[in-house]
């Protein structure tokens, strides 16, 4: 079979699963940062400056492991900013493979009025100078920093991801289903991620909920909504890595988070597209809201929740993705893993609208191991026979 035949065969089956047209087998999906590199015995930090070497290390495992689609894989940064700009929230850890993210909230609890007046200006006048004062003391330094960041983002997002996507599709028949240039941010996550952090946002929700609501409404108006102004592509799909939602009460979720999320989903559905959403953490207390939006408008990646419960409660209305715990891959026998996979396939495959994936991304050395390879190959073989 030529490479293009492999791609066409896999993609055709993937689309059948997504459109509920009788897939021949359950598609298996990648979700990773760079753990594939560790599987080859190398460190990301040692090879990332060589695009060919890096992409080969990121894709070699698919010589022995069946996969049909890619939700996300790769890195949004390289180590080249380290030593030039401090502090950095995103770095590779000491193992040279695992990305580490540390929240560094710059906004104080009594600054909501300033923020609400003009969030964009507050960020550029107050928060960035507070985090990086040196940028405003030395113009040549500031220029060097912006230049280096721009080069790094182009290299990570365009060069490395572009080349990897090409190899995945042309050599291994793996299709990207999510477009990370069309990433959505819910304003509650924007406030959480960029300004107030975990402790701050959750405290504010109790002590000054009206300010949080006003801040989110303003963010939606001047930050989140303008970033949705472009046309909606039918495929690959826009995506959303949710963050704060599982820490909200059902009431907070319904009143604060869901209205923005719903608007974004309905916008994609109206254009005949879907959205891919990482339901990070546990969502079972609020996921009934996804029954309110058009059928099959969402691909819901299940993380800590029970995939079979998700299938039962949502699977006739939305597409669900998941089925294998990364923790199990690292700690359980392959026989136990296969038994669990049989149960998941038996429950989730009927009726299509199911993509097999790990609950969490492959981020650290050991996440991509022989159990993972055997598990993915078993899903393909077992579901083909069903």
């Amino acid at each position, binding site marked *: 079979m030529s490479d293009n035949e492999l791609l066409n065969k896999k993609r055709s089956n993937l689309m059948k699963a997504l459109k509920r047209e009788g897939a021949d087998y359950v598609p298996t999906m990648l979700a990773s940062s760079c753990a594939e590199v560790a599987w080859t015995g190398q460190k990301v930090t040692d090879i990332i400056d060589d695009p060919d070497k890096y992409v080969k290390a990121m894709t070699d495992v698919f010589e022995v492991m069946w996969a049909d689609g890619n939700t996300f894989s790769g890195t949004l*940064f390289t180590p080249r*900013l380290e030593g030039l*700009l401090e502090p*950095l*929230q*995103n770095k590779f850890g000491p193992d040279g493979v695992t990305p580490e993210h540390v929240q560094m909230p*710059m906004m104080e609890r009594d600054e909501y009025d300033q923020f609400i007046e003009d969030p*964009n*200006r507050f*960020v*550029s*006048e107050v*928060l*960035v*100078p507070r*985090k*990086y004062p040196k*940028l*405003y003391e030395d*113009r040549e330094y*500031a*220029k060097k920093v*912006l*230049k280096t*960041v*721009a*080069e790094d*983002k*182009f290299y990570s997002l*365009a060069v490395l991801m572009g080349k990897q996507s090409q190899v995945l599709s042309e050599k291994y028949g793996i299709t990207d289903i999510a477009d990370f240039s069309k990433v959505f941010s819910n304003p509650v996550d924007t406030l959480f*991620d*960029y300004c107030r952090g975990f402790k701050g946002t959750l405290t504010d929700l109790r002590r000054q909920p009206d300010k949080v609501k006003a801040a989110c409404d303003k963010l939606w108006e001047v*930050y989140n909504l303008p*970033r949705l102004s472009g046309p909606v592509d039918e495929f690959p799909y826009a995506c959303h890595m949710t963050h704060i939602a599982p820490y909200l009460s059902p009431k907070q979720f319904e009143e604060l988070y869901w209205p923005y999320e719903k608007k974004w989903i309905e916008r994609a559905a109206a254009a005949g597209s879907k959205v891919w959403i990482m339901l990070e953490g546990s969502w079972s207390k609020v996921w009934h809201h996804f029954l309110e939006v058009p059928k099959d408008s969402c691909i819901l990646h299940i993380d800590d929740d029970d995939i079979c419960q998700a299938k039962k409660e949502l699977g006739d209305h939305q597409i669900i993705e998941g089925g294998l715990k990364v923790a199990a891959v690292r700690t359980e026998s392959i026989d136990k893993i296969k038994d669990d996979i049989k149960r998941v396939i038996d429950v989730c495959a009927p009726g299509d609208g199911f993509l097999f994936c790990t609950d969490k991304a492959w981020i650290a050395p050991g996440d991509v191991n022989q159990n993972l390879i055997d598990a993915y190959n078993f899903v393909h073989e077992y579901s083909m026979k069903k």
Partner: protein
Amino acid sequence: MSEIEKKEQSKTEYLQEIAKELLEDESWDLPKEGRFFLLPGFEWDVLYL
């Protein structure tokens, strides 16, 4: 630009002026279409580095 005018430049204007210079820099080997990080709103992404 006089010293007085420089002092009146806001922090927003200062950083955006540098970004604009880089976006228009003909000597920079990064393709212009690859300079997407420097487009309006880039301050949010600087905050998240």
